[in-house]
């Protein structure tokens, strides 16, 4: 069976979740490899959530929030951005490709952008191959 990447996506409710909904309303297709978890703000996403997802066998993690300057909670997305930068460094040290974690800004009106990001990301993960932690992943 060919490898199908599994993506866990954390979407902020105000911008990116609405953007994903708009993609749906506009019937814009994207790969079914993505599984969404709703959060109110991308800043709720703890780096440990990302590590937990990777450790349990997700091939990629997408964190998506409002555009910089547009956060519904004033500045949550800036915190997301900073944490993601640190997380990237940590992933390198752990021997995990930092490309497996993406932070993107998608507004409520960018359904098309959301669909494009998912398609691109899944394609990139296909090239990267399965998450190396997958075979060691704990029995769930």
């Amino acid at each position, binding site marked *: 069976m060919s490898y199908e990447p*599994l993506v*866990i996506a954390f979407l902020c*409710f*105000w*911008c990116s*979740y*609405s953007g*994903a*909904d708009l*993609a*749906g*309303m506009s*019937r*814009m*297709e*994207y790969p*079914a490899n993505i*599984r*969404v*978890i*709703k*959060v*109110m*703000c991308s*800043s*709720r*996403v*703890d*780096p440990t*959530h990302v590590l*937990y*997802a990777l450790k*349990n*066998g*997700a091939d990629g993690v997408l964190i998506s929030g409002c555009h910089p*300057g*547009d*956060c*519904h*909670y*004033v*500045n*949550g997305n800036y*915190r997301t951005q900073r*944490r993601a930068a640190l997380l990237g460094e940590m992933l390198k040290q752990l021997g995990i490709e930092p490309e497996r974690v993406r932070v993107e800004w998608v*507004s*409520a*009106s*960018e359904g098309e952008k959301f*669909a494009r990001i998912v398609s691109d990301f899944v394609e990139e993960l296909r090239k990267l191959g399965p998450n190396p932690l997958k075979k060691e992943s704990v029995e*769930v």
Partner: protein
Amino acid sequence: MEIRVGVYVCHCGTNIAGVVDVEEVARYAATLPGVVVARNIMYTCSDQGQGVIREDIKKYNLNRVVIAACSPKMHESTFRKTLESAGLNPYLLEVANIREQVSWVHFREKEKATEKAKALVRAAVAKARLLEPLEKKIVPVERSVLVIGGGIAGIQAALDLADAGLKVYLVEKSPSLGGHMAQLNKTFPTIDCAACILTPKMVDVAKHPNITLLTYSEVVRVEGYVGNFEVTVLRRARYVNEKLCAGCGACADACPRKVPNEFDVGLSKRKAIYVPFPQAVPLKYTVDPVNCLYMKYGRCKLCVEACPRGAIDFNQKDEEVKIRVGAIIVAVGFKTFDARRVPQLGYGKYKNVITGLELERLSSASGPTGGAILTSSGKKPESVAFIQCVGSRDLKYNGWCCKIGCMATLKQAFLIKEESPETEVYVCYIDMRTAGKGYEEFYRRLRDMGVRFIHGVPSEILEDVDGKLRFKVFDQTVGRLLELRVDMVVLQTGLEPTEDFEKLRKMLNVSLNSEGFFMEAHPKLQPVEASTRGVFFAGCCHSPKDIAETVAQASAAAAKALALLSKGVVEVEPLVASVNPEICSGCEVCVGVCPYKAIRLAEHEGRKRAKVVDALCQGCGACVAACPSNALELKGFTEKQILAQIKALISEVGT
């Protein structure tokens, strides 16, 4: 207590069931831990569908409900009420979005869509098992509303709210109320005089005891949340004391400086101390600091000498005022497309190529020509061609329809024909769109009056030596290339968002759509509400619309604001952060992270520990992720709940 989950998989007619095997998903859901009943329902949101859930809650003693249906943005509140009516805490609900984020985007991959739906249901059940009952927060509200924009939309909304007994602050950027409608001569299709229906309303606003009118002012900062917004308004200095100015105009008579008059679209001149138009409200003069000789060079002051009441005060300064409101209505209008962007139409190059708005001023009795439609040489035109959709319905400029151009052209053609029936009038159109009450009848009337309609887009416009304008147009109706020579060309320009939209979007935390207009919470069911609670839209800042539609939407926005504030309190989500003082070390990382200053240090067993002020917390969760000791938790999005979701989404068997 034993967890007993009920799962309901919605068909949404064929919206979901046409792609996702809903029976299979329900069958699968029944095997998940804690699930005691799982069904598929044709329309879960219907009375019947909700009835099934209510009955099951009682029959199976359910204490958690999972609904796999449309986006929670659509019906989460509907289903929370279902739970409540069956005696269950409304926060014991979890929604799996299998329509917007499954069936509608994976419609060609039915198997994968079904698998994904199963995974989302699995995660929803895993989270639902960990949900806790929550009590809604009740917060008091300010029974006052800020209306931004003093055009017909803002005026209507302000009057409706004020009549209903609410306090209204109406903020208008320019020196007078009126907006674009004040520039119009007549309105379609009834040919009512625009000023006769608008100016009394402007006066009503100024006189209304419940309305505070802040003209020549701008909103610069908005803080707070639904029911409790704190707004900072910048009141720009008029350099004229509003209390003393009687609007006599002696100052303007004395002013030596003449500059183009914006209100007449530059077709006439005004002075550097001015009122935008004679019926301005408030009728108070304003010094235009850019053009005033005294402000620029320190010399002149002729107006000061001329004013019989000593109202002119060059020492005035801009000032900031703070107001508290419970809701905000945004009614900031639009700007017209700049026809210079389509150079082949010759606007700005040939004097007799004008815009629809300019024709409106020319035809107005209070306009630069006293109501005579004249060419640049001062003659009555023998022939006029209208060109529709300038800057509209063209992806090179603006993709959208301006919605008012067809009717505006018909009205202006009527005004020309009414005054001189012998004038030839041509209308070059892409489509005639005359959907509205009495609009089609008006169109027919204009055809009967002899206006020639040409179904085609004109080529480049050229000017002949005699000043006549010449262009070619292929008439699709007769299949022939026509060449027209006319005295005047009128470009019906489109409607666009203004630069202010972006500033307001940021201040109000609302969204703009891809065209740049303000985006409503739901295109069908919440057409005047922003996604941010307590913010509403009215008029053309939401999308191009005519006066009748604008007035209807303004009243709708007012009604929504009134409904929100009439009880004096609002319910807000109890999804707030909380601290476990046993784990908290008092490091204060969370204090610095919180954008609402909702976390403070408080005494707990002799030590300083973080404490969340519920009323201020907006539930973003930034503090929770920042806490180095995991002492913070966000209700509805707890650590355990999120981890359970992640695990369930990855695993094949569930947790």
